[in-house]
Structure formats: C-alpha cells, structure tokens
C-alpha cells in the first residue's frame, strides 16, 4: 500500500473544484438553516437546477458561458420562488418536506426519457464546457505545486470555483453583520416576535431562500464544469453531504462551510484510500474492495451522529449561539 499516494490524493482533494462546489452549496444551506432557520432538505434540487439550466442553455440554446451562467442564477431564483410562495407561510417543518420532495421531482423530471432530447434523460449531458474553456485567458502549462498541481483547464475551473466561494463568503459575512442579518436571525429564533416588531417576515424568509438557493445553483455549475451532468448525482445523498459539511463546520459561521467541505473530502478520500489499500494488501480480508468503498459512508453517518450529539455547534460555532436546542 502506497501511503504517500493515498495522502497525496487526500491533500489534493482539499482544494479541488468539487470541494469548492460542496462548500458553496453548504454556504447556501448555511444561509437557509444556520441564519434564517429554514430547513431546506432539497439543496440537491437547487444544484440540479443550476447544472441543468447551465447545460441546457449551453447545448440546446447555444448560450455563451456568461449567459448560461446567468440562466443558472435566474432558474434557481424562479425555483426558490415556486418553493417559497406556498410554503414559507407555513411552519418550518413543512418547508423541509416540500424541499426534499421537490428536489426529487426535479431529478425525476430531468431523467425522464420523454425529455432526453433536452436533458439527455438518464445518461445526462456532457461536452458543455467549451464556451467556458474558450474564455480561459491562462497561458498553457501546469499550475500549482505538490498535490495541488493543475492543468490549464483544471486551474480555470479552480479559479472560478474558489472565486465564487470567496464572493459568497464575503456576501454572507457582510449580510450577517448588518441589520438584515439581525432580522433574519431573529426569524430563526421566533418569527412571531419579529413580526410583532413590524418586520415583513415572509419577505425576509423569501430573500434568504433565494440567496441560499442561488449559492446552491452556482455550486451545481461549478460541480459539473470538470465532469458531465449525471441525474443520479442529484439524489438526496448530495443534500445530506452538504448538510454534513455544514454541521461539521458550524451552521451559522462564515468559514464553517469551507473548512467543513475540506475536512469532509479529505477524510472521505483518506478513508477510502486506507481501507481500500488494506483490503488490496489482504490485511483486511472480510470485505471486498467494493464494500470498502461503501464502508466509509457508514463511518460518515456515524461521524454525523456523533457530531450532532457531542458538538452541535460544529468546529467553528459558538456553543452558546449554536446549540440545537435552546
């Protein structure tokens, strides 16, 4: 077993664009849950909306990258409004049910064979990054060092991914130190109290839902840039990965989702490498290599349970502010 290779892989994933995409999606549910108290269990739906809006406008409508990018944003705003208008007047738990169901609806719609001309059906979409890469101003060559070495194309995705994460982080930081953030956090605590103080609670919840949804959608775009669009990627597991990341870092923290995403992916790749390596080296004999790939998700679930029980505020969270039960 080549431990250096495993370590190299694990460190490399810490800064990969995929990690950035998950961080961005987690920043989105951070706005929803951590600050506004909205239980969005459909972040995968927002990511799918972003990915498909980008892919379809590029391939079917022939939009250049900036327009396709904008389409992803608009599509997620529309999706958030459709979700929010009927449900935000109801109690928080209803939103949870509606979001998880609508994310599944989105996934079933895009994988329908009837729509395969547009969505590619079950096989998804690919080869849509041409316009994006055509915009790449970087001279050819390799970038970075050590585990973080990227080709010109990879580095272009890297810059966009982490650039968007940086922008989203700054926006969240600016908003949450402002009176807007105060109102939103107040709604998380008790929306009737905030209503009695003359704030339009419904409008604030909608704004938070849209903002977090847009981050989710952009995460969807970043997620697909280095790969193809696969409808199976947008199952509920994706949502629960982003939740794990959020809770790992701390739900109402600015840097929590970023660090959470890095730790999550490094651990995932590390455990896969170590367990898989041990199986291949016949040190662990009672499971197959396929099972080794799955067992890390069992460990992940266990880790999430332990986290919520023993450190609900996450790594960065303030225990007083962020414990689950107040």
């Amino acid at each position: 077993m080549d431990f250096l290779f495993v370590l190299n892989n694990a460190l490399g994933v810490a800064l990969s664009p995929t990690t950035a995409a998950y961080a961005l999606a987690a920043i989105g549910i951070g706005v929803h849950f951590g600050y506004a108290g909205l239980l969005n269990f459909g972040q995968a739906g927002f990511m799918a909306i972003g990915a498909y809006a980008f892919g379809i406008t590029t391939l079917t409508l022939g939009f250049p990258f900036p327009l396709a990018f904008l389409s992803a944003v608009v599509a997620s705003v529309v999706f958030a409004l459709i979700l929010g208008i009927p449900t935000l007047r109801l109690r928080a738990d209803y939103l949870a049910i509606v979001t998880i169901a609508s994310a599944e609806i989105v996934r079933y719609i895009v994988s329908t064979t009837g729509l395969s001309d547009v969505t590619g059906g079950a096989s998804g979409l690919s080869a849509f990054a041409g316009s994006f890469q055509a915009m790449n101003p970087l001279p050819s060559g390799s970038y970075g060092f050590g585990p973080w070495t990227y080709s010109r194309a990879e580095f272009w995705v890297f810059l966009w991914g982490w650039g968007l994460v940086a922008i989203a982080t700054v926006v969240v930081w600016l908003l949450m130190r402002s009176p807007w953030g105060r109102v939103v956090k107040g709604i998380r605590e008790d929306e009737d109290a905030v209503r009695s103080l003359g704030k339009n609670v419904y409008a604030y919840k909608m704004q938070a839902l849209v903002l977090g949804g847009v981050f989710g959608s952009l995460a969807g775009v970043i997620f697909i840039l280095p790969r193809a669009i696969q409808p199976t990627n947008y199952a509920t597991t994706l949502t629960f990965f982003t939740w794990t990341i959020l809770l790992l870092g701390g739900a109402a923290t600015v840097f929590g989702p970023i660090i959470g995403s890095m730790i999550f992916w490094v651990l995932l790749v590390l455990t896969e490498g170590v367990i898989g390596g041990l199986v291949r080296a016949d040190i662990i004999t009672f499971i197959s290599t396929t099972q080794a790939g799955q067992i890390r998700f069992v460990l992940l679930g266990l880790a999430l349970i332990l986290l919520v029980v023993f450190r609900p505020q996450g790594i960065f969270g303030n225990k007083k502010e962020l414990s689950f039960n107040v």
Partner: protein
Amino acid sequence: MSEPTVVTHPLVVGPVGPGCKKVDPIVIADGVVRRFGGNTAVHVDHVEVPRGKITALIGPNGAGKTTFFNLLTGFDKPNEGDWSFNGQNLGNVPAFKVARRGMVRTFQLTKSLGRLTVLQNMLLGATKQPGENVFTALFKPLWKSREEEITTRADDLLARFKLDAKREDYAASLSGGQRKLLEMARALMSEPELVMLDEPMAGVNPALTQSLLGHIKELKNDGTSVLFVEHDMHMVRHISDWVIVMAEGKVVAEGPPETVMDDQAVIDAYLGAHHDTDLGDMIEQKSVAERARRVEAKEASLADD
C-alpha cells in the same frame, strides 16, 4: 336590585356601559367575530379604547381576551368585523404593518430571541433602519448612522429597565422576569402610540412586579396608550384608568377600576370562580376584604332573589 342610574365618566361620551363611546378613542372595533368551528370565541359588538390612558382587558379564563388581542394586532383573522387604529381601518392588514402603524404588542409567553444578545433584541425593535433592506445591508456606510441612533435609544431604554448590565448577554440567559422586561423595552424601541401587553405580570416575581408597574405608568406619562390583558386584580386596580370586562367572547362591562368590579355582569361572569384575589398582599388586604364583603352581599342578595 338597585334601580338603574345613569353613570358618567370624563373619558366617556354619554352613559358608561359596555361598548360606550370614548371622548378620544385610539382603537375602535365593530362587530368583530371569530369562530373556531362551532365555537364563537370572540363576538365584540362595539368597543373603544381611550387614547393616552391605561386600559385593562379582564375576564375569566376562556373569555376570548387573548384571541381578541390577536385579532386586533393582525395575528389572527376574524370571520367578520371592522376595527380601526387612529381612524385607519385595520381589517386584513398583516401583523407587521399593524406594528409599523404604531400598535406594538407583547406576548403572554415571552418571545425573547434567545440566541441574539439583549442589545440585538432591542435593535430589532427599531424602525426605519435602511440596513434591513437586503441590498442596502451590504454597504455599512448606508446604515451606520441610523445604527448609532438606535443603539443610543436602546441603551437609554436598557438603563431605564435596568438591563444595561446584561447588554451583551444572550437573551436566553435572562430570567423569566428579565425577559418580560426585555420584551416590553423592545416593544418601545419603535416609539409606538399604543402598546398592547398580553399578561405582562404572568410569572414575574413580586419585586419585579413593582418595577414593571412603574414602567407601565411611565409609558402613560410619555403619552403612550396602553391596553393590557391581566388576571392580577391588584395590578388592574393599581394602574389602570379604564377597565373592559370580557366574558364568553363578549364585552360585558366597562368602567373605571374603582367601580367596575361591582357591576352585576362582572360578578355574574366571575361568580363561582374565585379569580385572583391578591390575598398575600398586605397593603391590599383591606380592600380585598372589602370587596369580598361586597361580593358576599351580592351573592346573598342573588340567593334571596
């Protein structure tokens, strides 16, 4: 039974009685009905709340006081009826707009925002903060000056309510009584014209009761109108200028606190229910004894009938 005599009062136009017209009303409600299934919780034909005074809304449990409160403040919608605040119709106006028009309420079960600091709770009560707009919020210079103004006001109020030492603490760490104080102080941030307090004394220890009473009186001195729901008769007699009595969803009596408890309808409403007579209060013992005698006399006369 005594023969009907026409009673008048400086706050009232014409004779005193349920639904009587006030000289200067701030809230007027007409035909407000709220049904829950087949049960009519509130059926108020006409009631007016005087401006610049402390008005108590009393009545036995289940009289519909809190439901009526919710209806007036837009937290619940009536099946029928109109009501106005300062001459503006409030039918179908959402709760947050009612608050913006200057009618701010508190809740029977305190709603302090636990994971916000005491100061943040206070600042949330302020109005006209441009930083509460999602776009303006991004640019601190646009809301910084207003933030300083409202922080000054919040600090003044916190000092007045003796919560200034708790300024940076999470509201969740306050005691029940302190949360009541915080909720009242927070409601005052917007300088409302009418403060509606839903059982401000519930669960507050006697030491804090005195200071709460003082704060409510101060409100009146500042020109704010107060309408409060309360079970504590000691408090009602002590501070209110006017008392409205509800029973089974209706306004059954109105009058100044000194005489309203003698009203036949009130005694009927409370009869058999030994409502919160404040037996432990030494200062009040005399008047309690007096009232008990009066109630006994009435009961005796009823029995004779």
